[in-house]
């Protein structure tokens, strides 16, 4: 029903339109709007509590929005259950990795391969694990992996479903510099293979390495869109970041 190939004619893959998400009286998203083009790597940055993770949660179907729309391949998808979104090519990773702790690493990926997009049944689980250096842990319960390995497993699991759009929530935190370089290269590779990436990240160096452009969020609203270099000179952005401390 949803085409495997990215839409042509400069149509965006995903369009976020005036998205609103409230928790009680707090507006975590307050009219957020942006587009993602096919094959793009876009960074989502902003201070803590600016709505980055909430945005991913809405896109991946964990929350349904209180206003606005998420449009994928030209069709509204907000309110669709997560597993349906996965099957039409949207997936994500978690800030705190959430593997299936009692299943082995290989089983973790196999579950995803079994339920992902129907035309991706022939996922080579072993190769996928190997590409994240998890091949020697394939038979171990995921609970025994360390935090970094669990993050990679999260990513491998998401990829096993054959996504067109992958939202990545703080992958870099906790990885050492060498790992960072490898992961960045891996993400660029994914983008080259046609997967669109939305990357939430605090590490600006990492963002700079992988993204084509960034969207800066503040209080649930986009305040800047463009290359990272542009963002750092934007007065509004500077004000937000200086106001909240640059440790972000």
């Amino acid at each position, binding site marked *: 029903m949803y085409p495997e190939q990215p839409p042509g004619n400069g149509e965006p893959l995903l369009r976020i339109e005036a998205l609103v998400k409230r928790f009680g009286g707090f507006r975590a998203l307050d009219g957020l709007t942006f587009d993602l083009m096919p094959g793009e790597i876009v960074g989502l940055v902003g201070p803590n509590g600016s709505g980055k993770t909430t945005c991913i949660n809405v896109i991946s179907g964990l929350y349904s929005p209180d206003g606005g729309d998420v449009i994928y391949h030209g069709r509204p998808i907000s309110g669709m259950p997560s597993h349906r979104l996965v099957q039409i090519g949207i997936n994500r990773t978690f800030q705190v990795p959430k593997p299936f702790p009692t299943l082995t690493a290989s*089983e973790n990926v196999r579950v995803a391969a079994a339920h992902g997009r129907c035309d991706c049944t022939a996922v080579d689980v072993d190769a996928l694990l190997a590409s994240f250096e998890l091949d020697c842990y394939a038979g171990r319960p995921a609970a025994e992996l360390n935090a970094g390995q669990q993050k990679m497993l999260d990513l491998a699991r998401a990829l096993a479903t054959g996504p067109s759009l992958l939202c990545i929530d703080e992958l870099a935190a906790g990885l050492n510099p060498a790992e960072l370089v490898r992961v960045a290269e891996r993400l660029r590779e994914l983008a080259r293979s046609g997967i669109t990436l939305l990357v939430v990240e605090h590490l600006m160096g990492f963002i700079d390495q992988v993204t084509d452009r960034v969207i800066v969020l503040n209080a649930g609203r986009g305040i800047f869109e463009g290359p990272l270099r542009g963002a750092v000179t934007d007065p509004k952005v500077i004000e937000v970041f200086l106001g909240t401390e640059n440790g972000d």
Partner: protein
Amino acid sequence: MPRTMRHILVALVPVAAMALLPLVYSNQLLLFNFVVFMILAQGINVIYGFTGYLPFGYFGFFGAGAYGFAISIMHLRMTPLPALGMAAIAAVVLALVLVPLFRLSGAYFAIANLAAGLAVYQVVSNPSLDNITKGPYGISLPAVFDPNFSYGIALVLLAATMMTVIYLRNSKFGLSLQAIRDDAVSAAMAGVNVVRLRVMAWLLSAVIAGLVGGVFAWYISVFYPQTVFSLDFSIFAIVFALFGGMTTILGPIIGVVILYGIYNLIGISTPQYFELVYGLLIMGLVLFQPNGVVALFKRWGIDVP
């Protein structure tokens, strides 16, 4: 030998043993109770072992099955085998009504499920339903009483239940259920239809309890509502399955053999300390071996599927 074949061979051992034991041991009813608890413990395994939901009110399905069977015999004039089908249907209907309980997690689900089982008991045993269920006055089905045939059917049911668990252990379906149990959100992000699979497992375990309830009603043929709607059936099955080891094929069976065996030994030798010893055993299990004896075997290097 492929894994599934090996599992099937292993699973046939208890079935064959329960089929042969009546030849050397004449207390068939005790053996029948063993079979009933083996089936119930596997039913618990399906829902608690594979999805992590603790069905404290599991006896509700057992009782619904027993009454579905009895009502089909009494009012619809069915023969026992089709009546067993009605037992399964009764349990499935109850399970469907209770599907919304899956919105609850942890202890909340267990408590609500317990309440549901007790509620069904209250309804079935109410004198105003005398015409349908015979209310509190009890059921007597002397016309279909046939211990040998019903024992045989119970064995068939045991075999079928074992096959179900083997299927869960070796299929994508079973793997996905375990994924849901481990982390429902992640399972959804792996593309698993969490709600549908969970409900399927729930119905499956309800069918198992309903069928065994029907066979139980058939075998004993005289019973009161409190006979079949007894919390003991839930507790025993849960403790047996847990003692053996959840999510395994032989664990629940081993649990029944050891614990129900001890239960009957104490019951016959030192009945005055029966409840005490049993309570202590349950406590010891949770405190010292919460993953069951199969996990213990694994630690000793013995692989029990």
